[in-house]
């Protein structure tokens, strides 16, 4: 009888934990952070400064992953192509990598825009000049995501 009660309590505890985890998951919204810079800010740094920059950003990303806030993060090459279409004819324009470009992105889980903004502000890249992060909520569309 005592064992049965212990088992029941254990089961209730597990179910409670699971339902809390589910409600925590439900509260999380998805955000894309587009990291903008004027040209490649990192190549302007000395090799020592570049290494330090990578270490700081790497640690920030690791911490986001550990706390369950990170879905994805990638730096981007500076080159790229912009594709357009007018009346069925495609155009291809090479990007000007010396202008304001997206140099990387984060895919973040946060409760709301306020938390997403606080996470962005903690990015150690802001210890250097010339960075901007545009935060955009991911939209839920039936049939797409």
């Amino acid at each position, binding site marked *: 009888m005592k064992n049965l009660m212990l088992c029941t309590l254990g089961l209730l505890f597990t179910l409670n934990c699971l339902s809390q985890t589910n409600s925590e998951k439900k509260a999380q919204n998805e955000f*894309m952070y587009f990291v903008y810079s004027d040209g490649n800010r990192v190549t302007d740094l000395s090799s020592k400064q570049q290494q330090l920059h990578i270490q700081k950003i790497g640690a920030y990303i690791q911490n986001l992953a550990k706390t369950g806030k990170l879905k994805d993060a990638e*730096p981007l090459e500076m080159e*790229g192509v912009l594709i357009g279409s007018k009346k069925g004819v495609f155009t291809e324009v090479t990007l000007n990598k010396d202008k304001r470009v997206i140099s990387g992105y984060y895919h973040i889980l946060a409760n709301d825009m306020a938390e997403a903004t606080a996470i962005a502000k903690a990015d150690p890249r802001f210890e250097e000049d010339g960075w901007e992060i*545009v935060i955009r*909520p991911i939209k839920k569309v039936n049939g797409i995501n």
Partner: protein
Amino acid sequence: MKEFMLFIKSEGNPIVNFSPEQQQEHIQKVGGFIKKMMESGHMKSAQPLETEGSIVSFKNGKHIDEPFNETKEIISGYYHLMAKDLSEAIEIAKADPRFEDGDWRIEVRPVMNVDGIN
């Protein structure tokens, strides 16, 4: 296979003046394209974005926090692709049926491999 990010850009919402049926047809076409690319192993992820947002920057020792109020060209969604090279990524982008429905632009960008980051 290499990784590419494709940023889908538009001025406003090109399908805003479509009838509900046409909008549904557009979503079905784009959804079908995404499904096909996922099944062929060319797409890792695809997400549309809300039009609002926030901009964080840092100037004179403090963070600046502004609303995202872009009225011209904005990123309305993205694809995370796998392709053998930039040419194949461009060909995949051109196959997106959204180009049949209004003015869209797609920026194709290779993901950079950096030790300690990805």
